[in-house]
C-alpha cells in the first residue's frame, strides 16, 4: 500500500478499556490514531461483574482516583460458599483499601469506559462512536492495512490495526485468529442492578460514606459450574452469576431463573429486600486463560483485552478491566515503536508480546494458567461447597449430651458422607498448591 494513502498511523477497534488505553498510548507517542466504537458511547456494550482494580491507571493519570467515576471503594471483600440452605463466608475488610491510592472500586462501565476514552481523546485520539468495524482490509501479501466500517465510503487505512473489539471479536474470528465458537473457554455472565436507598446499603453491608463491598460466591448456580457475585454501588447493588456455557446448555435452565434462585437464597435475600431491578444485562467472559489465548501479533494487527481472551478467572482472583488496560497500553506502545521504526510486520510488532510477558498481563496469566480448569472442576464446584458447609455445621452444632467428636474424625466422616475420598482431598490440595504456587 502506498505510503500516501495511509490516513492514520493506527486504528483501534473498540473503545473499551483495552482500546482506549491503546489509543491513549499511541496518541501520547505523537501518533495519529482513530478509535472506533460500535456503541452510542464507550461502555454502552460493556458489562463487568465485580471490582475494577485501578493500580494500572497510575500509568494513565497521576492521582486518577481524584477523577475516576467511582461508585464505591471496595474495603470489604468476602467469599461465600453456598449450598441451598447454608452459607460459609470468609469476610475481610481493610482501612487501607478505603484511602488513596486505593485497591479496587465498583463503577458503571458506561461511566468508567467513557472516562477512559475521554483520556485518549484528550491525548489526541479521534473517537468515532456508533460505528462497526465489519472486516479487516488486507494488501496482496495478506498484511492488515485497515478496516471496513459500516458507514458510507467506509474503508479506513492505517499502518497498524489494534483489535480491542471484545469477547466476540468479529475481526479476530474473520481472520481465523480465534476459533469461530469456543464454547469450552467462555462463560456467560448475567446480572441485575438493583436499586436500594444509599443508607440501607450502608447499613446492610456495614459500610460508611464511599466504602464498598464485594462478595464472590461459590455455589448458588443451580449445580452449573460457575459462581456468583454481589457488590455495592452508591445507590444500587449488583447481583450476578457466571455460568459454564456447556453446562448451562446441557442443564436446559434459563439464566434469569438461576439469578432468581440466588436472589431468594436465605444468605442473599436479606441484602436485597425491597430492591427494584434497574437493569438486567448479559455478557460473555473469556475464561480460558493463558492456554486459550490466540497469537497476539500479526502483520499489521495486534489483539488486546477480551478479544485476546485476557480476563483472569483464577477463582480467588477475578480480574479483567485491569488486564485490558495493561494490554492496551502495551499494544499502543509497541505499535508506536513499530511505526517509528518503519516495520509494522508481525516481527516489527513482536515487542508487544515481550512487553506483556514482562508485565502482570502475561506473567499472571502464565503463572495461573491451570487455575481456570481447577476453578471449574467438578469437585470444587459441586462437592466441596456442601462438604465444607456440612463440616462447619456439624462442628458448631452442639450435640449435648452426646460428647463432641474429634475434628479429624468429623472431617473424615463428613467426607465419607459426601463421597470424597481422602486421597482426592490430598490430590486437590496439592493441585491447588501447584496452581497458585
Amino acid at each position, binding site marked *: 500500500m502506498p505510503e500516501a494513502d495511509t490516513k492514520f498511523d493506527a486504528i483501534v477497534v473498540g473503545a473499551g478499556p483495552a482500546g482506549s488505553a491503546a489509543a491513549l498510548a499511541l496518541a501520547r507517542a505523537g501518533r495519529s490514531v482513530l478509535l472506533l466504537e460500535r456503541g452510542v458511547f464507550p461502555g454502552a456494550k460493556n458489562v463487568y461483574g465485580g471490582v475494577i482494580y485501578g493500580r494500572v491507571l497510575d500509568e494513565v493519570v497521576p492521582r486518577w482516583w481524584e477523577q475516576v467515576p467511582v461508585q464505591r471503594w471496595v474495603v470489604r471483600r468476602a467469599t461465600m460458599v453456598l449450598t441451598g440452605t447454608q452459607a460459609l463466608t470468609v469476610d475481610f475488610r481493610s482501612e487501607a483499601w478505603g484511602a488513596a491510592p486505593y485497591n479496587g472500586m465498583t463503577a458503571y462501565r458506561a461511566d468508567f469506559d467513557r472516562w477512559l476514552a475521554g483520556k485518549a481523546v484528550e491525548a489526541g485520539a479521534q473517537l468515532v462512536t456508533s460505528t462497526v468495524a465489519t472486516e479487516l482490509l488486507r494488501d496482496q501479501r495478506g498484511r492488515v492495512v485497515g478496516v471496513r466500517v459500516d458507514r458510507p465510503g467506509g474503508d479506513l487505512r492505517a499502518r497498524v490495526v489494534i483489535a480491542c473489539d471484545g469477547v*466476540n471479536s468479529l475481526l479476530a474470528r474473520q481472520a481465523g485468529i480465534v476459533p469461530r465458537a469456543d464454547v469450552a473457554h467462555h462463560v456467560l455472565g448475567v446480572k441485575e442492578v438493583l436499586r436500594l436507598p444509599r443508607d440501607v446499603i450502608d447499613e446492610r453491608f456495614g459500610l460508611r460514606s464511599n466504602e464498598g463491598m464485594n462478595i464472590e460466591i461459590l455455589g448458588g448456580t443451580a449445580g452449573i459450574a460457575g459462581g456468583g457475585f454481589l457488590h455495592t454501588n452508591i445507590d444500587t447493588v449488583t447481583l450476578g452469576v457466571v455460568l459454564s456455557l456447556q453446562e448451562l446448555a446441557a442443564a436446559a435452565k434459563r439464566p434469569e431463573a438461576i439469578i432468581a434462585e440466588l436472589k431468594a437464597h436465605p444468605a442473599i435475600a436479606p441484602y436485597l429486600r425491597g430492591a427494584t431491578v434497574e437493569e438486567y444485562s448479559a455478557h460473555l467472559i473469556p475464561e480460558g486463560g493463558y492456554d486459550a489465548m490466540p497469537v497476539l501479533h500479526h502483520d499489521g494487527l495486534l489483539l488486546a483485552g477480551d478479544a485476546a481472551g485476557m480476563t483472569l478467572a483464577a477463582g480467588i482472583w477475578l480480574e479483567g478491566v485491569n488486564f485490558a488496560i495493561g494490554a492496551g497500553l502495551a499494544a499502543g506502545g509497541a505499535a508506536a515503536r513499530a511505526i517509528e521504526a518503519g516495520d509494522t510486520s508481525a516481527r516489527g510488532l513482536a515487542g508487544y508480546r515481550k512487553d506483556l510477558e514482562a508485565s502482570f498481563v502475561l506473567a499472571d496469566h502464565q503463572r495461573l494458567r491451570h487455575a481456570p480448569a481447577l476453578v471449574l472442576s467438578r469437585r470444587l464446584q459441586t462437592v466441596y461447597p456442601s462438604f465444607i458447609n456440612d463440616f462447619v455445621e456439624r462442628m458448631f452444632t452442639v450435640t449435648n449430651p452426646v460428647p463432641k467428636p474429634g475434628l479429624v474424625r468429623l472431617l473424615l466422616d463428613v467426607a465419607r458422607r459426601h463421597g470424597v475420598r481422602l486421597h482426592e482431598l490430598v490430590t486437590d490440595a496439592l493441585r491447588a498448591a501447584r496452581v497458585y504456587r
Partner: protein
Amino acid sequence: MGTVDFRVGERAHISLDSSICMGCSLQSCVTACPAGLFVRTSDGGILFNYEQCFECGTCYMICNAEGAITWTYPDGGHGVVFHRG
C-alpha cells in the same frame, strides 16, 4: 426486558437457517439465551427475535450445528445500550 435500553435497528443482525434448526435435537439456544429470544415453532423450527438482543454471543457459542446461526453486530449505534453494565 422492560429494564433495558434498546435502539432497535432495521436490520436483523442474527439470522437462523430454520432447516438446520428443525433437525436439531437439543435446541439449547431456546433456554440458554439470557434474553429468551429463541422460540420453538409448531413445525419444530426456531423463531428468533433480534430486537431485544444483548449481543452476548451465547447462542452461536453453544450452537452445535455449523451454519445454523449467522451472528453479527447490529449496525453502529443500534442494539442494546447498557447504562449500568
